Structures are given as structure tokens and as C-alpha cells.
């Protein structure tokens, strides 16, 4: 599903050049649950942004679903993103002015689905996250765990093949965090590929494979016991 070859990302300001990623090679197959770990500033989020087609690498090749998407424009990347990739963020990033249902419905709206279809799918996704009873609430009226479940519902509503999660439990206490991780594990069992950036070894336990990054390099790749690809 994902092949990254010699990925490089350099941020340059007027005075300094910072190498965020240096010769990163990663392959992720369909159905995998991969955790990316590493200290702050090691390039985890940069890698996730490139994988999620939110950003282009400075150098190297990135193949997504068999297409070389290394040097696509924002418009072209947006086309690949649509319906294929779901995002989950540490800070949830729900739109405050929209209700739970409207937030979940949003990706379908941009896919141009009919109102009936949107309603069916959004309700199914909310049902799956046990958030149907909160469908008319606004994000601010929910607990952190609930907000993240809505964000997950939004990420999966369009049947995304890949879910990218950036520290999904980072803003949550351990009970809510576990809850979210269980949901992600379930999704993975049902066939969704998940790539997750995390600081937490506990969360990483849910993954099949852990990639350690340090200063922009892949240091180790551990296949966790009991998992076989």
C-alpha cells in the first residue's frame, strides 16, 4: 500500500536548514497496524504528513496505492486523499460550529454523495463508535474521549483504506485512551490499515510493528511477537 524510498524532507528558513527526514525507507502493506515512535522532533509528524499526502517530500519517492505521488500538486494530492485516507489528530480537530453528525458527514459532502446516502453512512459510523446518542451535540459538549471517537467516526465514514493517527491518545486520560485504542484495533481487525504516531509504549502494544525514528532516520523496525504479516 505504501512504499517510501529514500525519503528526505528539509525545512529551510532564511538562516537554517533543518533535515526532518533523511533517507527513510518504509513499506507498509494493506491490513497492517504500524506504530511510529521516537522522541520529540525526530520527524514522526513530518513522515505522517507525507504519508497522508498533506505534504511533499524534498527528495525520494513515495508510492501510494501503486502511484508515485512524490511530486504532486496540492490539488492532485487532494484527489488521492479524498475517500482513501482518514486522519485522526491528538487535538481531535473537530469543527466547533458543526454538530457531531455534521462533522462526521463532512467528508461525504465533499465526495458529493446524496443526502440520504450521507445520513445512512454517517449514522452507521456513529453507531459503530457508539456515539449515535450524541449526534446533535456540539464538540464542546463532549468529553475528550467522546470527541476522539467522533473524529474516528469521521475518519472511517468514507471507508478510508488508510487511517493515519497522530498521537490519538495524547490529550486523553488512560481510560479514554484505552477506549480509543480498542476502537482502532477493532478497525484494524476489520481490515483497515492503520499508521499511528505515538509516544506511549502502551499504545504501541496494539500495533503489529513498531518503527523507531531518531533524528530523521529509521533506527529499528520491530515485528512484535505473535504478529505475522
Amino acid at each position, binding site marked *: 500500500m505504501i512504499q517510501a524510498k529514500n525519503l528526505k524532507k528539509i525545512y529551510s528558513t532564511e538562516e537554517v536548514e533543518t533535515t526532518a527526514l533523511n533517507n527513510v525507507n518504509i513499506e507498509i502493506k494493506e491490513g497492517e497496524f504500524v506504530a511510529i515512535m521516537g522522541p520529540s522532533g525526530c520527524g514522526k509528524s513530518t513522515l505522517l504528513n507525507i504519508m497522508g499526502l498533506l505534504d511533499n517530500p524534498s527528495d525520494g519517492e513515495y508510492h501510494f496505492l501503486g502511484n508515485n505521488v512524490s511530486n504532486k500538486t496540492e490539488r492532485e494530492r487532494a484527489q488521492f486523499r479524498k475517500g482513501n485516507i482518514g486522519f485522526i489528530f491528538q487535538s481531535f480537530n473537530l469543527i466547533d460550529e458543526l454538530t457531531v453528525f455534521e462533522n462526521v458527514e463532512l467528508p461525504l459532502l465533499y465526495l458529493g454523495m446524496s443526502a440520504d446516502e450521507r445520513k445512512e453512512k454517517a449514522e452507521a459510523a456513529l453507531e459503530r463508535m457508539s456515539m449515535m446518542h450524541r449526534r446533535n451535540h456540539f464538540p464542546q459538549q463532549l468529553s475528550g474521549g467522546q470527541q476522539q471517537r467522533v473524529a474516528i467516526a*469521521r475518519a472511517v465514514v468514507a471507508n478510508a483504506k488508510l487511517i493515519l493517527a497522530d498521537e490519538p491518545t495524547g490529550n486523553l486520560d488512560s481510560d479514554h485512551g484505552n477506549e480509543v485504542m480498542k476502537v482502532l484495533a477493532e478497525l484494524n481487525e476489520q481490515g483497515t490499515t492503520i499508521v499511528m504516531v505515538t509516544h506511549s509504549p502502551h499504545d504501541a502494544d496494539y500495533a503489529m510493528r513498531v518503527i523507531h525514528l531518531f533524528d530523521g532516520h529509521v533506527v529499528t523496525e520491530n515485528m512484535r511477537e505473535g504478529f505475522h504479516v
Partner: protein
Amino acid sequence: MLKNYIKIALRHLKKYKTYTSINLIGLSVGLAVCIIITLWVRYETSYDKYHEHANDIYRVLNGPSAATQPPLAPTLKAEYPDLIEDIVRFWPIQAPSDLVNNGQVFTERNITFTDPSIFNVFTHPLVDGNPETALSSPNSILISQSLAKKFFKEENPMGESIKMWGTDLEVTGIFEDVPLNSHHRFEALVSIDLLKNYMGNMVDSWSWNGFYTYVLLDQSTNTSEVERVLPSIYSKYMNEDYNEAHLQPLSDIYFNPQDKDIGVAFGNLNYVYILATIAIFVLIIACVNFMNLATAHASLRTKEVGMRKTLGADKFQLTTQFLSEAFILSFTALLLALFWVELALPFFSSFTEKPLEALFNYDLTSILGLISLTLIVGIIAGSYPAFFLSGFKPINAFKSKSNSGIGSSVLLRKGLVSFQFAISTFMIIAALTVFLQLRFMQNKDLGFDDDYVMVMEAKNYPLLYDQVNKLPGVESMSAAYNVPGQRFPFYPFRTEEMASDSLPTMRTLRVNPGFLETLGIRMESGRSFDEERSTDLTNSFVINSSAAKYLGWEDPIGRKMYWYNFSEDGTSFEIAKEGLVIGVVDDFNYASLHNPIEPLVIHVSQQVNSAVIRVKPNQVESTLAGVRRIWNETSGGSPFWYYFLDEELDNKYQSELKLGQVFGGLTSLALLISCLGLFGLTVFTTNQRAKEIGIRKVLGASVASIITLLSKDFLKLVLIGFAFAIPIGWYTMNTWLTDFAYKINLGVGIFLFAGCSAVFIALLTVSWQSAKAASANPVNSLKNE
């Protein structure tokens, strides 16, 4: 999708109430100003357009004057029937005339002598009577509907008799009231054939300019063809070359009245442009508020935009979303604006004395116009924020506080605030200039003393004089033909040095002895007319110093002059008075301060129409009562009218006075809207910088230093705006002042005052909010992350 846009727009507007109300108030006031001024402009430019042939009617001009010879029209029609579709003459009488029916007397001012062809040329529908025949007899009179109602109440006036100037006339038609937006209005029409009874040969004379001539041309006829034949007619009948004869389009008359136009309503096209421009300025200022606040608010919405993009929204969809938000706001503003218009229009209408309500009846054109205006406002105000917001890169959008990409908008925002204040300050400069010029004109030394001078009709003058002069409250009394404020007529004259066949003209004032003294007109040299010297009454002239200059006389006293008037039969001019110049008066402003003082010759005549009475300041009421009593005894039943000269002269500046007041009002609105925008930006900035303010306070900053910190940036922008307003204001207002022969100098003071008031008002706006932020407990803002 659209539903989603509208929904989120409404929620967003509801959430940020300050933001929404500032935008709504600003936009609605801007729109309301635009709507009202548009209605006024539409009315001003609608003059005379109601005639069916409006585009094919022209008035014949004789050089700078519209007064033409009576035989011109019949000659033109008879000799060039192919060129002229039809032609009509007007001779409006401005003096009040008595119309008598069954012993009832009504004094009317607006009676016009005309030809039967008036109904072929102009569109004046008859309610009753036949337009073909109504004016064919010299003894017919046509009256307006409202006059008919006044005279005859519910009865049918047709065939009734009305006596005018001693002749019995039969009512042969009733015409619809002449619309208010007509340059020439009349209440009654009588035939020019009737005029022959009173003026005889004059009506066929080529040496009298008294008539206004209007031609109706075929659409295919070029005006230049007519302009070519006019000189040949003049040279054929008058042995004179009138090369300057040309045609003035009917629709042009209202804004371009000519010399000697009497009884003609006129407007000022410049004022139309000025007010239209200002209305657009006010609206632009309101649009700028929207742009500024929307881009400022954008930083609160980066997350939303980023998330939408991540979820698959493209730039077009986001642009549409933000534009629809702008449209929702502008249409809500439109509804509010219509409410303001309903409130303000009656006042504005009565203030400008134009029936503006009548135009505002929500017909299809108006509704479409309003909708397109609102759409334009929505696009102007909404497009920049829409493109700006939708251009956020999703990856940057989540780095919540960095706000990259907003830097460019900050610069634009600053530019726009400066722009708003440039306009506002310019408007203060302009309003102030108009105000000072008006005050200058009202206080200007006219060269005579117009306070406590009463003017009235000089009927049975010798009798009137004897009795009024005895009243204790009368300081002095005299009479003249024309008084300052009226147009003094031109008459031909000649001096010894001039060739005997050259006849230049000069404005002439005919007075009774004592007139110059009563008005307090000062002598420059020589002496005034003396009742005791018989030659002063018959063979003497006083000229003004402009005339002395014009004639090139260093020492005018004792010079000889000849003054001409019509001959007995009205066909030529002859010497009516010859005599010596006995004195020179200081130039005094007898017309308006718009015009420089022209050369003037004054001589004694017993033919007078106005009495002037200088009243003792503390006895105005009792003297007025006495004069009224004497008038009723001596005038034989004529209505009593009078006015005070200073009030009448002030009326000359009514249009400027109104302009000044409208200008002042619009300036306040522009300033108000600018300050609203500034207020909104301050609220926003202080919220944004709440944490910084908190940290600074923890580190020991005083409230004052924080207010300074927050106000400084805005003040800089206001000052930049001021810097731009100075040259624009200086240039524009100097141009405006060229309209006046007597004008103020644009001093530094005006600019300084305008700048200071803009700065002061802005400072007040900004510091209010800054002070609130500065005095807040820092703990609140710090823990609030």
C-alpha cells in the same frame, strides 16, 4: 451543500456577536446611504425626461443667453419647414398677477404666455379640453388641476371666466400639474396673441429678447443643420451676425441654466457627482470593515479550513462557502438598510425638498437594483477573505498558533485601515471647508449693510413713502427698480470716447434719491444723488468702481455718458438719458458671492418696483405692523408681501448650505463606520494578544504602557491615512472653491483640525478596548491556554 454553508455561516455569525453586529451596522448604514443618495441622484437626473419627445427637444440659445427674439420661432418654422418638426415659445411672467373669478382674487406668479403648439412639442396631458384648439383664441386660459381645485373647488371650470390684466378669459382646458422635476413650471397658460393686446409691436420685434424658444426636431435631423441656418436668419432680419446661436438639449437645461434664465429650476451637476462619490466612499468603508474583520477572524478559522481541506474540500468549495457567508451578511444588511431608508427618507426628502418617496416603491427595477447592489457589496467585501481563507495549506492550518500565511493579510489590513481613515479625514477636511466657506459668505462685508432692511412692493409709491416715512421705527426709506439679490438688467450705453455706433451693455440700477444711503452703500469719490438738485434727477449717473476700471477712467467725475432704452414702438434703442458722472461707489455685492462684481451704472428714475425701508433694530415688530396697515390703506387691495434683505441674501447659499449639512452628516457616518471597524480590530487584537498582555503585566508593565502598546499601531495607520488625505483634500477643495469669486484660503488649521479630530476619535475608540484588556487580571489570560 449550500444548506451546510448557510448553516455554518449562521452559527459562526451567531457565535461572534461583536464581529457580526459591527459588520451588519456598517454594511447596512453604508447601503442605506447609497440607496438614499441613489434615489436623490435619480431624481436630480430625471428633470424634463418625462416628455415623450424629451430627446428631440432643444432650446435655442443666443450666445450665453436663452432669451430670443419673438419672431424667431414663426420665421424658423415658416422658412425651414423640413428642418423643424415643431416649435414653441414661452414668455413666463414672474411678477405676481391677479386672477379674478366672480369677485374672488387669486394672486399667481407662474403664468406663461405660449403658442398652441406647446402640446405638440411638450407632454402636458389635458384632463379636460382639446389640445388642438384650447389655445387658438387669444381669450383662452388653461389652468392646472390644482389651480382648478383652488378656484372652483368641485365645480367644472370649463367655460368659466377668469379676468387677468383687465381682460376676460375663458377656461378652455385643464392640464395635469406640471411635474416637480420640470425646469419650467407653470400654473396657467395663456396665448401669446393675448400679449399683443398689451405689448403691441414688441411681440413682432427683432430687437427684443424676451422669449424662450424650444424646437422639436425629427429624430433624423442633426442639430448642426439648425445651428447652421440660425445665423442666416439673424443676418437676414437683423443685419447682425449672431454666430453664437446654438441648440441646448432639453435634458441639459436643469444642470446648465443660462444667463437671464428666469423662473427656471436648476441643479448643480457637481453636487450630484460629489454626493454620489461620497455615498460610494461610505459603502467602501463599510466593505473594508468586512474585509478586515473577516481576514482578522481568519486566524480563528485556520483549523476549520485545514480540517475541511484534509477531509477533501477543494479551494473552490471553500471559496463558495466563505462567499456565501458574505452574501448572507450583506443580504441581512440590505434588510436592515431598507429599514433605515424607511426611517430616514421622509426627513431627507423634506430636507432636500425633493419628493423622493414617490420613487421608492419597490418596483421590479428597484428590487433588481437593490439585489445587484447587495451582490456587488458581497463580492467586494467577501472575495478577498474568501480567497485568502481558502488558500490556507492544510498542513499549516494545524500548527495552530504559528498562523503562517497570515502575514500578508496583516499588511493588507493595515493598508485598508489607512485607506478608511484617508477617506474619513478627507471628508472631515471637505465638510470643514464647506462650512467655513458658508460662514465666510454669510459674514462677508457685502459693501452695504443688509441688516434690518425690509423690502416690499413699491405700489402707489409716493403715497406709501409719505406715510411709512413718518413711522417712528423707520430710519430711512427709498425705492428702486431691482434690489441687491435680484438680477440687475443690462442696458446699452455709450461714452464720449466710444464710436457712435458701438453699443456695449452694462448692468443698470434705477433708484430714487436716498437709496444708496438707505442701504449704506459707500461712496469712493464724488457724491450721491441729491433730491434738491434737479440735474441729479435727470442728467446724472453714479457708477461703481468696477465700471470706472472697465471704462479706463482714472477720474470719472464729470465724464459724459449716454444710457439707452427701447424706443416708443419697441423696435430699436434710443438715448433715454444723457448726463455726467457725479460719483463713484465702492464695489458692493449686488448679485451672489459666486460671481465677481460686474460694472454697474446707477441713475435716478421714478420707475420703481421695490421699496427699501431701514428699520430701527428695536422697533421691527411695531414698524412691520404699521407698514402693513398703511399698505392695506394705499394699495387698493393687493396682497402684502415683504422680506428682510439679509434673509433673502442668505437664501442664495441654500444649495451650499444643504450640501454642507448633507456632507456633514455623511462625514459623521463615514467616521462612525471607520471607528466601528477599528473597534472590531482592537477587540480582535486584544483577544489575540491577551496572553502577551498577561505576561507583560506579570513582568511589571503598567496599564498605561499596555494601552500605549496597543494603541500605537493603530494610531500610526490613522496618521498615514491623514497624510494621504492632505494632498487629496487640498486639491479637491481648492477646485471646489474656484466656484466662488470670494472665498476662504485653505489654511493649515483646517487640515490640522481634521487630522486631530480623526486621531482623537480613533484614539478614543482604540483605548476604550485597550484599557479593558490592560486592566484585566493577567491570571485569567495566562491559564486560558
